[in-house]
């Protein structure tokens, strides 16, 4: 009975977790803590990275996703990213790449401020939700070589 109530409460939390303004703390060049308080799912992350309407990553990057043809070549190969960077560095990179490189072309995936003339359909929404960011980070962390 009690267990059932806890499970129900857990299932109800996504509404809270989807808040785009969920705050995060930057330590040095990392966001150490998960944006959701939970680990992401690498399989879902891979699907987000591969999807040209959701992640958009392969517009610019190449990555070890052989079934996707026509990958971009204006950004580093994502293969090995999890070996080059800690999970916290990957999280900050996806959340707001300008923290690493102020002139980067990589979009800020979890930022809604300091943007100009955002189309109405996307106003005040981050490109990816906190859950999606965690899934992507979990996937990138698996790319050790």
């Amino acid at each position: 009975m009690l267990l059932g109530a806890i499970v129900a409460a857990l299932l109800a939390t996504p509404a809270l977790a989807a808040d785009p303004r969920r705050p995060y703390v930057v330590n040095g060049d990392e966001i150490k803590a998960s944006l959701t308080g939970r680990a992401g799912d690498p399989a879902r992350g891979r699907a987000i990275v591969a999807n040209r309407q959701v992640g958009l990553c392969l517009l610019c990057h190449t990555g070890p996703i052989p079934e996707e043809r026509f990958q971009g070549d204006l950004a580093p190969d994502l293969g090995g990213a999890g070996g080059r960077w800690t999970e916290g560095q990957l999280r900050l990179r996806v959340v707001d790449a300008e923290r690493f490189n102020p002139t980067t072309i990589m979009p800020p995936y979890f930022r809604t401020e300091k943007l100009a003339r955002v189309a109405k359909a996307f106003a005040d929404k981050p490109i990816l939700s906190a859950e999606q960011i965690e899934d992507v980070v979990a996937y990138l962390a698996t790319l050790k070589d």
Partner: protein
Amino acid sequence: MSLGSAGHVLLGLLVSLTAPALAQAPGERRSGYHDMSPSLQAMQDDEIANPGMLWVLDGEAMWNRKQGAAAKSCADCHGAVSTMAGVAARYPAFSGANPRPVDLAQRINLCRTDNQKADAYPYESKELLSLTAVVTRQSKDLPIAPPADPRLAPFVAAGADLFTQRQGQLNLSCAQCHEDNAGRKLAAATIPQAHPIGYPIYRLEWQSLGSLQRRLRNCLIGMRAEPYAYGADEYVALELYLASRARGMPIEAPGVRP
């Protein structure tokens, strides 16, 4: 052309009179034509196969048709359409008493309203595209030649400013793609240098001719930025900047693109 957008351009030009010169050296400039497959290049080159020529032919018929309360054709005032050689090469420009520079389609609509006493054609209408196409075709192979009109300078500067300004949810600027990454692959597309020399253009994806404003709108939508309304001063400013950047490049219109 609302006051609001005029104010926006004015604001832009105040900060951008010192805009950095970004344009590629003439030897490095390259038409988007060279990034297409040989079969699409052949389609553009062949007057029979180039679908854009259908609009040119329609435009030629319209050139001679009497219109509006004045019951005058374009030919009644200008003579043969061949007298338009060189005109498209110098637009956008100041024209008549209009207080702001206009692009070629807007100039054609000024002739509609002022000289033919007819209604302006809507942007991207078949009629406006056809007249723009036939006038531009008269400048085929002529170099882009923006006029040395000092009144244009602040508008060109405003366009340069818009070109380098990040916008949209993806926080990109035109220059980040078309200056910094031209020639690289954005998924399947080779990023062109964004020269306006083929417009209006037949795009297979559109299955239609389309204006340069339509192309700019598509890039803005890709950036997830709010596109300016057709006819906005921002487009004319961008078109002026693109023309200044392409000065001397030969006109290819109507171009073909995938």
